[in-house]
């Protein structure tokens, strides 16, 4: 997700869902930060993990 407009829409929708109200300057900085993160994370999301890892549980019950 590298389209700046898409990220801006995502930030606005997400903050609305979380009932988080950002002033304009903060909103702009969050959009820039999330855009940067999206670029960093893109290779991770494009990476194919073996199915046994992709479908593994992420929680283990502990007593």
């Amino acid at each position: 997700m590298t389209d700046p407009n898409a990220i801006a829409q995502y930030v606005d929708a997400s903050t609305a869902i979380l009932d988080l109200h950002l002033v304009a300057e903060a909103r702009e900085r969050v959009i820039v930060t999330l855009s940067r993160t999206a670029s960093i994370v893109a290779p991770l999301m494009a990476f194919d993990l073996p199915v046994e890892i992709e479908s593994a549980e992420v929680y283990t019950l502990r007593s």
Partner: protein
Amino acid sequence: MSATQLALAVREGAVSAIDLVSASLDRIESVDPQINSFTLITRERAIAEAQKIDALRAQGATLPPLAGVPYAVKNLFDLKDEVTISGSKVLRNSPAATADAFLVERLRSAGGICVGALNMDEFAYGFTTENSHVGPCHNPHDVSRIAGGSSGGCGASIAAGLVPISLGSDTNGSIRVPSSVCGIFGLKPSFGRLSRTGSYPFVTSLDHLGPFARSVEDLARVYDICQSPDPVDHACAQRPIEPTFVELSKGIDGLRIARLTGYFDELATPLAQQASRLAAAALGAESEVELPHVDIARAAAFAITGSEGGSMHLPTIRHHYADYEPFSRDRFISGALTPAAWYLKAQRFRTWFLQRANELFKEFDVLIAPATPCPAWPIGTEWIELNGKQFPARASMGLFTQPISFIGLPVVAAPIYQEGELPLGVQLIAPPWREDLALRAAAQLEKLGVARSNVAKDFV
């Protein structure tokens, strides 16, 4: 003097604990304004603890191993009757801790004397300890430069000779980065090795706690004292104590050691590459190996950090945005918005990446990489250049540490001083639970004089 030497001096009666600690406190108050490594000096507590040690000695009792040795802790550790601020402003009015953190209690039981709490990046979200609330921590080797982070106070206080040992935390590099740029030894143990009870969390999937020191002997001794299973911390491995100090004398006999290349060379300045090569040559490491997709490991750690850290702080940032560190509050908010798909993919990638590392560990016992891409830069730096490319400075100090802590491997950061240069350390990386191997390699580098940790010349 090292912690070991100080403990011996107290044990033999050459100096009383009260005299030792008083001198330490006086020096801290006199010198620390130049580096801003302390945020709290616990004079009353330290004097009381020292008096107890002296009383024990007067009774002829056997003194514990760190009796009379002053130490300090990053200000995310609970200290009884003090407020744990974790580098923040928003926590300043919180209730005081009712008990010491687990590791602080371990040091206290060993006779160590807590002299204070140390400066850090707010909530540990940084690699430079440029804390806007209390001011930056300055590097004793050049006070215009950063001390690294987020445990900058831990590194600077030791490099300035204010304390011989300290305790810090490392989520993505926060022990190894200050160790590297302040020129001291640091140990990030295996994930889950040391209890985190009584420490303020940052990223529970990635947080580690560990010691700093000016010698490998001190580092190993303090680490051994800190070891203990803790059923209260569900992430703490229920392993028996596995002493490492007694292993140091084995040297590197039988150890298979290799230098990591690829990502760790491509993003390293010539000075960082040279540090790695010097360590490899000294340890007789002729092999060079690569870990695959280290850049993706770093990206995954980045995603997990933002998501968990952001989610944890969301309730507070919602109402106290202005009181948060300007360098990190928007990263926290951005992190809280991380899509679940990113976070889960990142967690799953950990398993794959650890499998690749363990494949390398079938052939090698210790892997060498630079700890930081370059030495400390001036406080306030926004962008740095690494081999012709521009990088945002503050996030980039952790380029080499983040992929390794991501999979919880134990690492000793060993300081390398090259002629005419500021210190820049190397990571000595071992398989899970094998802190002893990394410490043995560090001890060998220290013995050969390749890794050394002196008090910064302006603070001798």
